[in-house]
């Protein structure tokens, strides 16, 4: 990007690389640290469990567990200061597997702790319940069991959180390898949200472990090689970058060295006028107050060969074959030839997409959730999370989103979205075991302690996921006419004037009339001249 390179050619480029350096250092270069954990006596022993490792960690890192316990990663709870809503995984309903409550040991497999098996209580109190290794293991062989409430597999049995066959984790090796988190640490959970690779976010997939430059210009293995933490800066184990209360318009800019360790925005490195001072660059810089960087610079998501789930219809789940066995269909073929589920008796019908064009909306950073206590209008598509913002409010910008389309259960009497109990191999109510919606919902509502009429139906839903990863190289950024066109990407956004998009206005119509009158007048004049053979006198 000539724009970026010229702007960053000076001091800010140095700052950028300085910023990237910790990330680069930790990947396969643990020796750069001042501490070699393999030499620590307390780690030179066999560990019998994850918590045993944590106890060893805390013997030196005395405040670490307490810090982690103040993070969303631990609490799964977020009090939105703007809307007053209590959100977080503990509380919200989504358009994927629905809810954590009632499905704990499966869902809490990705908790940064050990043994949280009841959502009605906070996470376990003891410090050793914090899972240090899930973020800090650099041996590459630490993982968590898919159904173990956060515990690692200690024998080759079951599946891991990424869906792979489990192996016996070597806790000693993991403990001796610790360092700063790499992509594998974050990706193990965040790339697999929603039950599989890229299912949930669309812009977070296993393609980011080793992306090419065109998939992610920042994380490209042969380029800047950023880790997640290069942007998602942290302070006392609390990370920047919230999906509930988004810094949708960062006007703070880059700041000085040592400043601003609080945001993961593009602007915190690139500033708010990142394009060069040319006629084009100035015009592009004029856009940054109304258009998020991501809108032009992430032309599509689910790039790099991993599809994302775009539609999930729970209402068709539960069909069984003539022998009473679950059915599966795998009609979607990913670009790498892999077949993906398009029907599962446990989950219903799916659609998938690769290189998906985002949905665009004005966004002020606020997301309001249709929590289970909200009344919905089932005659409309229910927005599981409503994107706040409007043109002309002085704050909002146009952002790209993955719009997940769903069809999920609700209470037809109370008009509330419902919690469902899907996972529970040993219960007679879990949907994935018993294929009975009535019992599944009743059990889910009971687990959540929510009021339920006993009657349910299915309602169409939308759920919005801000797209901010998979930034493309500047050459792949959207051309102007992708939006400045009658049928462009922003054709459906209303309430503001945008050159090139609007139908002909009164000025154009009146002007065309004037032009037409002039052409007709001239043609008429010429015709009469020909008819009368008047040469049109000379001056003599």
């Amino acid at each position, binding site marked *: 990007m000539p724009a970026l390179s010229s702007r960053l050619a000076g001091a800010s480029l140095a700052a950028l690389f300085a910023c990237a350096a910790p990330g680069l250092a930790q990947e396969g270069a643990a020796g750069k640290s001042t501490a070699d954990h393999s030499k620590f006596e307390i780690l030179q022993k066999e560990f019998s469990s994850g918590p045993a490792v944590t106890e060893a960690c805390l013997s030196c890192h005395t405040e670490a567990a307490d810090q982690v316990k103040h993070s969303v990663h631990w609490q799964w709870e977020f009090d939105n200061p703007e809307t007053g809503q209590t959100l977080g995984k503990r509380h919200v309903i989504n358009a994927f597997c629905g809810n954590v409550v009632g499905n704990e040991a499966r869902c809490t497999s990705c908790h940064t702790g050990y043994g949280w098996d009841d959502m009605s209580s906070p996470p376990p109190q003891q410090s050793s319940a914090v899972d240090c290794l899930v973020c800090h293991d650099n041996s590459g062989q630490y993982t968590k069991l898919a159904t173990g409430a956060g515990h690692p597999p200690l024998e080759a049995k079951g599946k891991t959180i990424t869906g792979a066959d489990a192996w016996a984790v070597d806790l000693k090796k993991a403990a001796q390898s610790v360092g700063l988190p790499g992509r594998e640490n974050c990706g193990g959970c965040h790339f697999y949200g929603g039950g599989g690779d890229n299912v949930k976010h669309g812009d977070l997939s296993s393609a980011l472990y080793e992306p090419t430059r065109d998939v992610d210009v920042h994380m490209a293995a042969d380029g800047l090689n950023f880790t997640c933490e290069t942007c998602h800066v942290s302070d006392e184990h609390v990370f920047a970058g919230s999906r509930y209360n988004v810094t949708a318009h960062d006007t703070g800019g880059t700041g000085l060295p040592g400043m601003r360790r609080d945001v993961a925005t593009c602007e915190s490195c690139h500033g708010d006028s990142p394009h060069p001072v040319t*006629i*084009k660059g100035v*015009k592009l810089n*004029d856009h940054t*107050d109304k258009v998020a960087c991501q809108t032009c610079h992430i032309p599509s998501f689910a790039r790099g060969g991993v599809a994302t789930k775009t539609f999930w219809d729970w209402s068709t789940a539960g069909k069984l074959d003539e022998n009473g066995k679950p059915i599966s269909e795998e009609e979607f073929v990913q670009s790498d030839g892999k077949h993906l589920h398009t029907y599962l008796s446990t989950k219903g019908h799916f659609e998938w997409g690769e290189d998906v064009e985002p949905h665009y909306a004005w966004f002020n950073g606020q997301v309001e959730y249709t929590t289970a206590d909200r009344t919905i209008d089932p005659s409309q598509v229910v927005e599981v999370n409503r994107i706040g913002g409007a*043109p*002309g409010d*002085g704050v909002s910008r146009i952002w790209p989103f993955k719009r997940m389309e769903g069809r999920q259960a609700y209470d037809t009497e109370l008009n509330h979205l419902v919690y469902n109990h899907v996972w529970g191999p040993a219960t007679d109510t879990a949907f994935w075991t018993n294929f009975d919606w009535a019992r599944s919902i009743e059990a889910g509502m009971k687990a959540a302690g929510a009021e339920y009429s006993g009657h349910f139906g299915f309602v169409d839903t939308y759920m919005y996921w801000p797209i901010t990863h998979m930034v493309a190289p500047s050459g792949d950024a959207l*051309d*102007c*006419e992708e939006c*400045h*066109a*009658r049928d462009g990407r922003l054709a459906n956004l209303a*309430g*503001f*004037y945008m*050159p*090139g998009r*609007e139908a*002909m*206005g*009164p*000025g*154009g119509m*009146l*002007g*065309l009339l*004037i*032009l037409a*009158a*002039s*052409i007709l*007048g*001239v043609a008429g*004049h*010429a015709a*009469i*001249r020909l008819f*009368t*053979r*008047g*040469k*049109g*006198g*000379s*001056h*003599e």
Partner: protein
Amino acid sequence: MSELHERKVKVYPRFERFWHWSQMALIFVLLFTGLGLNGLHGLIPFGPAVMIHTLAALALILLWVFAIFWHLTTGTWVHYVPTTEGLFKVARFYAYGIFKGEHHPYRKAYWRKHNPLQALTYLALKLILFPAIWVTGLVYLGYNFWESAPDSSLWLQVVANLHILVAYAIAAFVVAHVYLLTVGHSFREHVRPMITGFDTVALTPEEEAYLEQDEPARLKPERS
């Protein structure tokens, strides 16, 4: 009245010709890109169209700054002072007399090269249409300087519509302007003075003597 003598007199000095033709080229570039930006053709993508439109507009404004300076310092502005004298005759000629094969009623003078209707039209162009397109264009281009004003999106729409309206009015002028080159002399004869600078002007002996004596460069030597 003394006898008139036709001579080739320089009526369009070099700067005026440069101004005219570069203005013409820029206006065509602006019309072409502007029509594209408004979706009337798809011959140029939006981004390059905006860039070319902006650069051409800025170039034209710069040209205009020079042209205004030139008009004021050389006194050429007097050619555009409106007059009602002969105005009606010219209007009547275009509307009626031309079809009867009448002669054009205006006698071009070296110190007054436009007929009254022409002068009035050019004056209106220079005082109304061109300023209107610059002002609306600059306000449009500078949207980011006033976007925080109330209802700025609505005002942007108003400005855009006015800009487009004036642009079409200028296009209408171009149509009439080019058509009128076919009236009277041949098209080529009409265009030639704006290329060579010299036009055939009937001079009084006094005028001719003055030019011979004081501004000989403005007279083409007569072929002997």
